């Protein structure tokens, strides 16, 4: 008796294939629905959007231009917070409120830009490490581990100092961005490699290999799209880390003295912080909440998008 239509005997494998390939629309929609229910993640998203808005509009929002000592000439240096100077002014005459707003621009530029550089490098190196078997793959993995283990901050400080003297007068912030980017790709690379090792064992990749698809086609058409989720999560956390590092770098005086960053404003404040607490306090709070925002966003995304953590 023949009741059911003739179907090929392939159910389980086929299901695996479609769910992995269909990450596209439905996967993201499901992710967004889960993310919306995550209050902490949403808070993170709002904080991040708020900072991005400030960064994009700081030149119009801020009462004073970047690194402007105009309040000094107006006789308003070293004043506590007031209506005219909501975060006070520094001893040298900076309007702290304006510097915090302009700092959002500088620090987000470095934080996001450096992460973009790291993601690019990490994607390529991780993909190669995950896909090559044998010696070459091991060697690349070793390089990644070296970059993961070495003391990054001292090396970045040293590189920043030397480059700043030799070549980079004038585009200092971009130099910091590139350094953070070039030194910080190892986590992305690990994540990409791990995902690739997982995905390449799945049926549809094996199937396209059997069908004779080229290695590079498999990497860029099948594997890279599937690694995007964990990369986005890691990148969000990496932005948080990069902002923290940039603030330390410019606090220590290795940043660009001509651009507004939170770190450099904190540094300006420490000599007189006994009497003028506001100069170091506000840029530090700005840093804290920016980093908090990206961390919350990253955690929220990880809860919402990481399929292996679901019940």
């Amino acid at each position, binding site marked *: *008796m023949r*009741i*059911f*239509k*003739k*179907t*090929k*005997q392939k*159910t389980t494998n086929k*299901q695996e294939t479609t769910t992995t390939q269909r990450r596209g629309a439905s996967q993201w929609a499901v992710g967004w629905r*889960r993310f919306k*229910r995550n209050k902490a993640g949403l808070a993170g998203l709002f904080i991040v959007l708020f900072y991005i808005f400030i960064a994009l509009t700081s030149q119009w929002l801020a009462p004073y231009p970047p690194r402007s000592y105009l309040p000094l000439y107006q006789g308003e240096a070293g004043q506590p917070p007031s209506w005219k100077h909501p975060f006070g002014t520094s001893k040298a005459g900076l309007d702290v409120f304006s510097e915090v707003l302009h700092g959002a621009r500088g620090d987000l530029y470095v934080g996001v830009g450096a992460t973009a550089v790291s993601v690019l490098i990490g994607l390529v190196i991780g993909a190669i490490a995950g896909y090559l078997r044998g010696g070459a793959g091991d060697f690349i993995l070793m390089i990644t581990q070296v970059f993961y283990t070495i003391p990054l901050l001292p090396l970045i400080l040293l590189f920043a100092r030397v480059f700043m003297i030799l070549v980079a007068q004038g585009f200092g912030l971009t130099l910091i961005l590139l350094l953070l980017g070039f030194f910080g790709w190892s986590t992305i690379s690990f994540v990409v490699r791990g995902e690739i090792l997982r995905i390449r064992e799945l049926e549809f990749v094996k199937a396209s290999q059997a069908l004779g698809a080229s290695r590079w086609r498999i990497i860029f058409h099948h594997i890279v799209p599937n690694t995007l989720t964990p990369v986005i999560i890691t990148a969000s956390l990496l932005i948080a880390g990069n902002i923290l590092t940039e603030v330390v770098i410019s606090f220590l005086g290795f940043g660009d003295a001509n651009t507004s960053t939170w770190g450099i404003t904190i540094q300006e404040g420490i000599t007189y912080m006994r009497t003028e607490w506001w100069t170091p306090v506000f840029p530090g709070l700005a840093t804290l909440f920016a980093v908090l925002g990206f961390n919350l966003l990253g955690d929220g995304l990880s809860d919402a998008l990481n399929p292996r953590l679901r*019940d």
Partner: protein
Amino acid sequence: MEPLLDVKGLKTYFFTEAGIVKAVDGVDFKVEKDETVGLVGESGSGKTVTSLSIMRIVPQPGRILAGSIMFEGEDLLAKSEDEMRKIRGAKIAMTFQDPTTSLNPLYTIGSQLAEVIREHNKDLSKKQVTEQVIKLLEMVRISEPELRIKAYPHELSGGMKQRIAIARALACGPSLLFADEPTTNLDVTVQAQVLSLLKDLRQKEKMSLVMITHDMGIVAEVTQRVQVLYAGMVAEVADTRSLFKKPSHPYTEALLQAVPRIDQRKDLKVIPGNIPNLIDPPSGCRFHPRCPYAQEICTKKVPPLEVTDNGHLVACHFWRNLSLAGA
């Protein structure tokens, strides 16, 4: 004679972020003394949750909402957590689907077995416990048990790990054992060994065995009675022989048709569609979207469990009219 286990109207729901998953939704389930029952269905049909509910170890965010679980004449749902703990492992035991994840990777198998024995027999000396562990390992046919007790799970093969898990479940001579897909994650040759081991042990130890599986081949080989679950509800209950000869529920028929046979050259039939979403299950008979015989009434009315002429219990509006194919 009263049955060893008599479950009535069991409801276990999972309260997840996405909604309430009605994993087990009004299941009756009976096990007699000294028999092997197959609990059958696709993954997600509520087999495992039924057994976890009976042992009252449903993980978060699951809760048992209704029903009664009579075991040896006592209601398990009325027992305190402490009383329940003395029953688990000692009177009702369970083995899990994946032997690799069901043993703690950081402890030797000897210590994991000894721990269970000591928990239920506090006055045994250290030496007696070790002797008992070795006896258990011999019982599940592990060679060189004196050496193996020092081994860690990762040093053993999948088949050995499953046998260790069985040994742990039998450590205190339970009268009821749930074996949850005991062969699914094993190689074919090892599967046969584990099955025959379970069969022998059941006879020797005079216990009842509930075989949780989706494999009708195993059901035919091991069980005397079968209970088919679909989407958290009972579809059919019958003697194994009778069920294979003449199923009364279209879902049972579909399960039987999906078993490969060497002796007959015919195409395998796969059940079309997937197990339904249990947050918002189909109205009426939950099988109707996948059922080739579905009529209007199936979408509206939940079919009651009825006794058929040949003694099956079946939940289908049309059991009288259908003539279904056996295996």
